C-alpha cells in the first residue's frame, strides 16, 4: 500500500502513466468503489487504485462490473468503472439505460480504446457509444489531463446526475508523462438510497419520460461544452490553418504542425457547436484530425460546416506525427512501412502447449477464444480455426456442430481459458446442454489459474480478490456438472498427457457432452501464486 498522505498533500511532481494518473485521481476523490474486468490497455487502473489503498474489484465480466458500479452510484457513492473498448459491448445493455436513470452519486466509466490493435481483436471507436447512449465524454491527451479529467468527470457526473465517460487510448494509458496531483478534493456526501420509483424503475411509462429528460439534459450540457475551458484553442498561427482534434492526437498535431491553430476538444460529447462554428469560419483551411472513425468530422458536417477530413486509409491504425504530416500535406502516396517485429509466442513451458499439439495431431476444427492461448493459432500449432470475442468459442462450436456434415462435426472442439469461461463461457455451456447437437460436443477449458493474457489478474476461479485476499473459489467442474454436462474431466497436461489425448479422442467419437478441464498453472504466474498463497496462509495443491 503506498502512501496516501503523499497524494493528499498534492504538489509533488510525478512521472505517471495515464492509468496510474486515473488511479491517483480516484484516490484523491475518495472513490468508494472501482469495479471492472481486466483488458489491455485499461487493466492497470484498478490495480494501481488498489495499491494506493482504493477499494477495487474485478467482477466476472464488464456487464456485472457496470451493474455493481450503477448500484453504488444509485447509493450516492463516487464510483469508477473501467473497461477496454470491447468490454463496453458486454456492458452496453446497462449502459444505455443508466443514461436514462442517471445516478445520485458519481459514475465515471473509463473506456480504453486500442487503435492499431496492439492487443485487441478489433479497433472499434468508443466515441460512438457516447452518441449512441447519450453519455457525456471527456478525452484526456496526457497523464496530467487523465488525472484532472477524472476529477472533473466525477464532479460533473455528480452535478449532472448522469454517468460520464472518460475515454482514453493505448498511448494515453501506457505513456508516462509528468503529473502534478492536487491532493484530496472535498469529501463525498454520506451514502444513502433514496427511493425514486419513476426515476429508477425503467418500465416503458417511466422510461419514456426519462428519455426525454436525458435529451434535454444533453442539450443543456452542449451549452456547457461551449463554455468549458476543456475545449480550448492553442497556437497563434493566424487564420490560414486550423486543426480540430481530441485526445492523444492533439500531441501529434502540435509536433506535426507547430504553425497551426488547434481547437482541442477535451470534452468531446456533446460537441461544443459554437466554438467549432467560430473556429471553422475564422480559418481558411480547417482540417479535422482524429484517430479511428470520422466521428468528429461527421458531427461537424452535420452542423452544415465544410471541413477537410482525413482520407479513408487513416481510419485504420494509430495516428502519428508522420501520418498527420501526410494528412496535412494531402500526400496520398503509399506510406513507408516499418519492418515487422517478432510475433509473440506461447512461453516455453506454457501449460497450453500440450493441448494445441494434440488438437493439431487429431486434426480438430477448433473454435477458439481470447487469451494467451489464442497464440495456438500461430506456428508451430496452427490449431485454432475461429476467434470472435470472449466466450464465443462455445456458441460458435455448437453452431458448427448443428449444420456441418457429421464427419466434420465430430472434429469440432471449443477451447476457452478459465478467466474467459467465467467471463462469458458459462452461458455457452448452458446452451450446450440445452440445445444439444446430435453429435454431442466437447469443450476444453484451459485452466491455468490466472488471467494470464492481461498480466496475471485474479478471477472468481482463483479464489482470490483483486488485491489477492482470499475469497470464495468458484469450482469450474461443479459449474459444468450443475448446468448439465454429462462428463467432466480434470486433467494435468504435463503429468497425464496420454490421458489428455485419449480423452479428447474418445470424447470426439462419443455423442456425449464432455468438458475437459486442462488444469496446470501458468508458469509465469506460478511463483507469484505460491507467494500469495503462503502470505494468505493457505497453500493450495
Amino acid at each position, binding site marked *: 500500500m503506498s502512501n496516501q498522505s503523499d497524494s493528499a498533500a498534492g504538489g509533488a511532481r510525478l512521472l505517471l502513466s495515464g492509468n496510474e494518473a486515473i488511479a491517483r485521481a480516484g484516490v484523491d476523490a475518495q472513490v468508494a468503489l472501482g469495479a471492472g474486468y481486466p483488458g489491455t490497455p485499461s487493466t492497470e487502473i484498478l490495480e494501481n487504485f488498489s495499491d494506493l489503498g482504493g477499494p477495487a474489484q474485478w467482477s466476472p465480466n464488464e456487464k456485472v462490473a457496470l451493474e455493481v458500479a450503477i448500484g453504488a452510484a444509485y447509493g450516492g457513492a463516487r464510483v469508477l468503472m473501467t473497461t477496454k473498448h470491447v468490454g463496453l459491448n458486454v456492458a452496453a445493455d446497462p449502459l444505455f439505460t443508466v443514461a436514462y436513470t442517471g445516478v445520485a452519486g458519481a459514475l465515471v466509466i473509463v473506456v480504453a480504446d486500442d487503435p492499431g490493435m496492439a*492487443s485487441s481483436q478489433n479497433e472499434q471507436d468508443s466515441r460512438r457509444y457516447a452518441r449512441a447512449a447519450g453519455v457525456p465524454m471527456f478525452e484526456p491527451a496526457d497523464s496530467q489531463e487523465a488525472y484532472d479529467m477524472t476529477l472533473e468527470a466525477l464532479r460533473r457526473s455528480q452535478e449532472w446526475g448522469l454517468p460520464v465517460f472518460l475515454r482514453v487510448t493505448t*498511448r494515453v494509458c501506457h505513456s*508516462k508523462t509528468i503529473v502534478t496531483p492536487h491532493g484530496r478534493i472535498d469529501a463525498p456526501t454520506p451514502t444513502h438510497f433514496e427511493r425514486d420509483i419513476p426515476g429508477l424503475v425503467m418500465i416503458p411509462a417511466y422510461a419514456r419520460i426519462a428519455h426525454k429528460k436525458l435529451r434535454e439534459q444533453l442539450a443543456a450540457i452542449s451549452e456547457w461544452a461551449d463554455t468549458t475551458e476543456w475545449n480550448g484553442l492553442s497556437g497563434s498561427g493566424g487564420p490560414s490553418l486550423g486543426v480540430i482534434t481530441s485526445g492523444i492526437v492533439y500531441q*501529434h498535431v502540435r*509536433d506535426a504542425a507547430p504553425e497551426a491553430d488547434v481547437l482541442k476538444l477535451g470534452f468531446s460529447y456533446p460537441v461544443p457547436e459554437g466554438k467549432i462554428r467560430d473556429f471553422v469560419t475564422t480559418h481558411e483551411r480547417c482540417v479535422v484530425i482524429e484517430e479511428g472513425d470520422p466521428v468528429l468530422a461527421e458531427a461537424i458536417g452535420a452542423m452544415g460546416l465544410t471541413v477537410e477530413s482525413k482520407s479513408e486509409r487513416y481510419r485504420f491504425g494509430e495516428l502519428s506525427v508522420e501520418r498527420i504530416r501526410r494528412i496535412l500535406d494531402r500526400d496520398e502516396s503509399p506510406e513507408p512501412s*516499418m*519492418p*515487422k517485429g517478432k510475433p*509473440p509466442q506461447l512461453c516455453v513451458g506454457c501449460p497450453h502447449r500440450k493441448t494445441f499439439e494434440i488438437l493439431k495431431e487429431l486434426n480438430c476444427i477448433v473454435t477458439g477464444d481470447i487469451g494467451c492461448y489464442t497464440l495456438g493459432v500461430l506456428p508451430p500449432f496452427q490449431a485454432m480455426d475461429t476467434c470472435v470475442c470472449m466466450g464465443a468459442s462455445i456458441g460458435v462450436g455448437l453452431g458448427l456442430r448443428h449444420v456441418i456434415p457429421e464427419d466434420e462435426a465430430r472434429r469440432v472442439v471449443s477451447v476457452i481459458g478459465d478467466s474467459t469461461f467465467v467471463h462469458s463461457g458459462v452461458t455457452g455451456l448452458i446452451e450446450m446442454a440445452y440445445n444439444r447437437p446430435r453429435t454431442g460436443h466437447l469443450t476444453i477449458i484451459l485452466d491455468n489459474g490466472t488471467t494470464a493474457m492481461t498480466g496475471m489478474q485474479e478471477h472468481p476461479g482463483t479464489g482470490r480478490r483483486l488485491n489477492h485476499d482470499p475469497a470464495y473459489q468458484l469450482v469450474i467442474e461443479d459449474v459444468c456438472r450443475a448446468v448439465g454436462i454429462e462428463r467432466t474431466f480434470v486433467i494435468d497436461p504435463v503429468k497425464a498427457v496420454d490421458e489428455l489425448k485419449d480423452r479428447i479422442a474418445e470424447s470426439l467419437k462419443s455423442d456425449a457432452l464432455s468438458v475437459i478441464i486442462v488444469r496446470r498453472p501458468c508458469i509465469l504466474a506460478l511463483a507469484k501464486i505460491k507467494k500469495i498463497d503462503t502470505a494468505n496462509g493457505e497453500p493450495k495443491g
Partner: protein
Amino acid sequence: MSNPNVTNVIVAGVGGQGVLKASDILGEAIFRRGFDVKKAEVHGMSQRGGSVKTDVRYGEKVYSPMVPIGECDYLVVLSADQVEINRPSLKAGGVLIAPDAVDENRLTNKRSLNVALLGVLSRHLDIPEADWREAIRVNLPEKIQAVNFEAFALGRNS
C-alpha cells in the same frame, strides 16, 4: 522537420529482456534531471517473447510521446536480431547502441545487459551520474541493485 529541442531515444528488444525496465530507469533519470519527458510503450501480447519497443522523448517541452520514424537520436537495442527492424527509426547521424556495445562476459549477471547498455547511453546524455543511480535504485529491488550498479558502470566506462 524534426524538433531540435527534443531528444529522442528508443529502447528495443524482445519480451523478457528488461526493455520496459530500462526505459523506466531512463525516464526516471531524465525526470530527475528536471526535463519534460514522455515515455511510450505497448503492453500486452508483446510480452510473450515478441518484439518490444519503447520511446522516450525529452526536452524543454514534449508533445507526442512517440518518436517519429527517422528522428531517433539514440537507438538502444538489447537483442541482435532486433537491430535491423529498428534501424529505420534512427535519424541520419543518430547513434546506435547495439548489444555488443558491452562485453557480455564481463557482466556478473547477463540479465543486467539492459542496465549496462544504459551505461553506454549515459555517456551521450547530459544527466548526472547521481540521477542515474537514483533511477536504478527506485526501479529495481534491493537485492539486484549492486549487480546493476556494476553493470551500469561497465557500460559507462567501456
